[in-house]
């Protein structure tokens, strides 16, 4: 069991840490230019894919299991997230990244019963909305955003585990650990001030993972649990309340995390109650 956790979680988190350190170079105590904002997106996808391959094996393209398509989506949004971080920002670019990420999600998701155009379109719209909401926040406060995402991924992993999808739960737990690591790095160093790439990757992966979990098990607990966790992401803006302006950044970061954690905790408790009561 220890060996398995090392292989599927600790190894990928370590690799993601190397990517983050290479991108952010947090030991330099001056804020980096915008071109270091590709770190979190790439780190998340590197960690996710390493965890995926440790679970599924390298011959994943030969596997007939449809949920393995999530690896292709992760790879595609990683490329998109780097473009979003490095290309110059205009007023319309956030929407464009959201549309592209949503399109990729709708195109590449391959779980049972999502072949209906309405389901794919719905996923695309959710990804677009999450990108639009989280991208500016990730630019302003990388720490608060990373902490909020860590809370969302941790609860999503809990839901997946409750629905007896341990493989995907471990991969999602890896994403939570990487986001937590990013939040700690930001807390330790002012570099970077923001990281937009992570928001693009998370905006695509979080609803996709939730939809995947639901598609394979819609009996154990209500669908509202999945919806609550996805809908918790905008609550990260709670840390931007005017009343918090005079407090140090870690306070607003904490408020963001608590605001995200409340709907997530409600979702997880509901799911656990439905599954075990």
């Amino acid at each position, binding site marked *: 069991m220890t*060996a*398995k956790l090392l*292989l599927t979680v600790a190894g990928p988190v370590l690799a993601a840490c190397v990517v983050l350190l290479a991108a952010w170079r947090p030991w330099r105590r001056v804020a980096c230019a915008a071109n270091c904002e590709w770190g979190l997106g790439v780190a998340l996808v590197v960690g996710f894919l390493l965890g995926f391959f440790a679970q599924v094996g390298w011959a994943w393209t030969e596997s007939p*299991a449809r949920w393995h398509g999530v690896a292709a989506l992760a790879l595609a949004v990683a490329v998109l997230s780097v473009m979003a971080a490095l290309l110059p920002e205009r007023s319309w670019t956030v929407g464009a990244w959201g549309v592209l990420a949503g399109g990729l999600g709708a195109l590449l998701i391959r779980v049972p019963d999502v072949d209906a155009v309405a389901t794919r379109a719905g996923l695309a719209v959710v990804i677009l909305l999450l990108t639009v909401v989280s991208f500016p926040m990730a630019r302003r406060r990388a720490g608060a955003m990373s902490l909020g995402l860590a809370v969302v991924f941790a609860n999503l992993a809990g839901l997946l585990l409750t*629905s007896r999808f*341990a493989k995907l739960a471990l991969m999602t737990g890896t994403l939570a650990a990487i986001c937590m690591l990013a939040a700690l790095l930001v807390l330790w160093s002012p570099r970077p001030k923001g990281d937009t790439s992570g928001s693009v990757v998370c905006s695509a992966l979080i609803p996709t993972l939730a939809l995947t979990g639901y598609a*394979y098990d819609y009996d*154990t607990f209500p669908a509202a649990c999945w919806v609550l966790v996805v809908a918790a992401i905008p609550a990260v803006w709670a840390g931007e309340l005017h009343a918090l302006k005079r407090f140090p950044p870690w306070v607003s970061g904490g408020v963001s995390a608590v605001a995200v954690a409340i709907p997530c905790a409600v979702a997880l408790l509901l799911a656990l109650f439905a599954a075990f009561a």
Partner: protein
Amino acid sequence: MKSSRSVVVFSFVVGLGALSGLVALADSGAAQQETFMIDQVHSSAIFRILHMGAGPFYGRFNEVGGTIVFDGNDTLELDVTVMIESADTGNERLDGHLKSPDFFNAREFPKMAFKSRSAKKTTGKMYEVVGDLMIHGVTKTVTTQMEWIGTADMGRGKRCGFEAVFTIKRSDFGITMGVADGGLGDDVKVIVGLEAKLQG
């Protein structure tokens, strides 16, 4: 005297004809292929897997269906399906995990199937059956020894029974959860007991 001898010869010829007719009839009956429907209630598939490197863990699938074509001799054709939803380990949570994408992925692959390609009678009631086994969306050719348990009609239709015992590697079928860390064995011993009723 002559007439009584004629009667004896006639009777002998008629008797011989009737006997040979009966023998022919019996012979054709033995070689006749019959199609049997697998009785779900009295058939099952049981599996055994090594748990935590020590315990022999047993479970079963309760819904086994399909057809058997059999002539009581050389011809044996099997088309067997096992419903994943019928997985039964005696623990509801564990059954749910077996059906999840971690193992059988019942939403995508709701059934296992075995379709024989050839069967050869080896000794007595033993058959060597070669066929395609499909599990988890992956099809592999397997060879198994199958024992013909018997054929009987006890007033509620003619029935035949077979039993097969074989071992598969689940990783060959893409079911790898627990293999790498040894929490669950890779080899799965399968025992399939089939009872089938004559169709029609």
